């Protein structure tokens, strides 16, 4: 694709991005809640680590602490909610106008998802990183902190894996938005989806803490690519040499889910029923 073909998508991303940046009060409130959550989680894991033999601890406590803080900082990047505007469009019938736009519909929705996953993350991540990385050590809780990655390679690998995680997260987000065309935004379906993502991505508990027999399946599911794999590269729990495999998994799933999304969107649009007048 040439630069010119991408222009409308860039414009959509930047317009949505600027709009979403307006929700600062919500971001501050969310930040406070996640801070309390992060601290509680760290204390729980520390207690578990203190009262168990090293043999059952799959990663060092410092790595686990970094994992927890990255999860709290990047929470908004997780594909866990629907785009409220798309839901309203589906319900009101305004979705018909989407068909009239002179751009590829899937691309349009993907661009919306990019803004939806980045703007709130930018607002929340920076203060959380400052707190977990710099304030905690000053408060005398250095063992709880978000430590810097152990090597330059781990840091660079994390940046690459995080970019791929964003692409994957957006592909999943669009799929959820497309599902609204069948469910009309039923709470039940969205909650089921949110739960799946929270449990299997590493947000609820870091995936390495699940039983050993579940590790293989967890790693191959798409959700690990959004949170778990990049975080483990950051913490040095996965070697920088594993980066190629991680990226292959993430991008493989991204391509597959985009293809699935395009197909479903095409089918959904053929049966679109405009509600009301």
């Amino acid at each position, binding site marked *: 694709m040439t630069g010119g073909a991408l222009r409308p998508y860039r414009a959509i991303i930047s317009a949505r991005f600027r709009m979403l940046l307006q929700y600062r009060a*919500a971001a501050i*409130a*969310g930040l*406070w*809640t996640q*801070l*309390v*959550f992060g*601290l*509680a*989680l760290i*204390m*729980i894991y*520390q*207690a*578990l*680590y*203190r*009262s*168990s033999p090293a043999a*059952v601890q*799959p990663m060092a406590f410092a790595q686990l602490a970094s994992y927890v803080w990255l999860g709290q900082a990047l929470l908004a990047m997780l594909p866990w909610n629907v785009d409220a505007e798309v839901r309203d469009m589906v319900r009101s019938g305004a979705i018909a106008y989407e068909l009239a736009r002179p751009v590829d519909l899937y691309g349009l929705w993907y661009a919306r998802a990019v803004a939806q996953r980045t703007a709130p993350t930018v607002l929340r991540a920076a203060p959380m990183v400052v707190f977990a990385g710099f304030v905690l050590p000053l408060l005398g809780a250095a063992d709880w902190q978000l430590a810097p990655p152990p090597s330059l390679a781990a840091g660079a690998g994390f940046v690459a894996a995080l970019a791929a995680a964003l692409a994957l997260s957006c592909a999943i987000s669009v799929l959820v938005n497309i599902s609204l065309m069948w469910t009309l935004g*039923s*709470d*039940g*379906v*969205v*909650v*089921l989806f*949110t*739960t*799946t993502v*929270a*449990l299997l991505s590493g947000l*609820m*508990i870091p995936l390495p*803490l*699940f*039983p050993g027999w579940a590790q293989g399946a967890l790693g191959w599911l798409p959700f690990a690519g959004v949170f778990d794999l990049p975080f483990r590269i950051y913490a040095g729990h996965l070697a920088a040499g594993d980066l190629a495999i991680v990226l292959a998994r993430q991008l493989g799933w991204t391509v597959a889910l985009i293809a699935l999304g395009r197909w479903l969107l095409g089918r959904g649009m053929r049966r679109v029923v405009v509600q009301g007048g």
Partner: protein
Amino acid sequence: MQDALRLYRAYAAASIRGQLQYRASIVMAAIGTFVATAAESVAVWALFDRFGQIHGWTLPQAALLYGMISVSYAVCDVLGRGFDAFGAMVKAGDFDRVLLRPRSTVLQLIGQDLVLRRLGRLIQGLIVLGYAVTVGTIDWTIARAALLIGAIGCGVCAFLGLLVLQATSAFWTVDSLEVWNAFTYGGLMMGRYPMPIYRRWFRTVFTYVFPLACVNYLPAVAILGIGAPAITGWLAPLAGPVFLVVSLQLWRIGVRHYRSTGS
């Protein structure tokens, strides 16, 4: 009082009838809530499967903490929708109508909506509690059973008090603040594990400011018959109703302070 109860029954019946018009949607949503809360239990189970115990507490013991707090919160969640959505009500100026009616504002708000889909959370909590009380770690006596039920009731009061406080803050901020989630959801999560694992300042907040430990950890210790003088566990749950009464006093101050948005 009887009049209030009759009115509440009428409110509840109307709300339930309304929701039953969309039966499939309610069932789907309740299943969704059930699975979502069940996933959290899976996560806790996974931790105990790997680590065996936390601070000397095994899974059946911790399940008592988990079950008690989940059931308390779930009951409050079903009842408290009116307070939960209070920010939107103030924003829209709809609270004016509530004030016009010759009945208590609290009763009207609690009666506003009885959210059936949130029963999914209650059922899940009851399953965990059922496991905890039948698995055989507890030496049951009538008194301990009474303490369990009383502590859960006091827990409902504590969470309702928090909800009332959250709604009260909307009188000043014209919006329900997400900051309270740190106490509700944060408390719901940290209450699943024994209190001594937390730092002192954290314990202080969740014991003396928001009396979560008083309705959950302390009575659970007495029911399990481990450590700490049992008398604390028997008296502590009363902090829940006290917290609710204080919250309702603040609510009254808020109502007097209320100025309609005019919309």
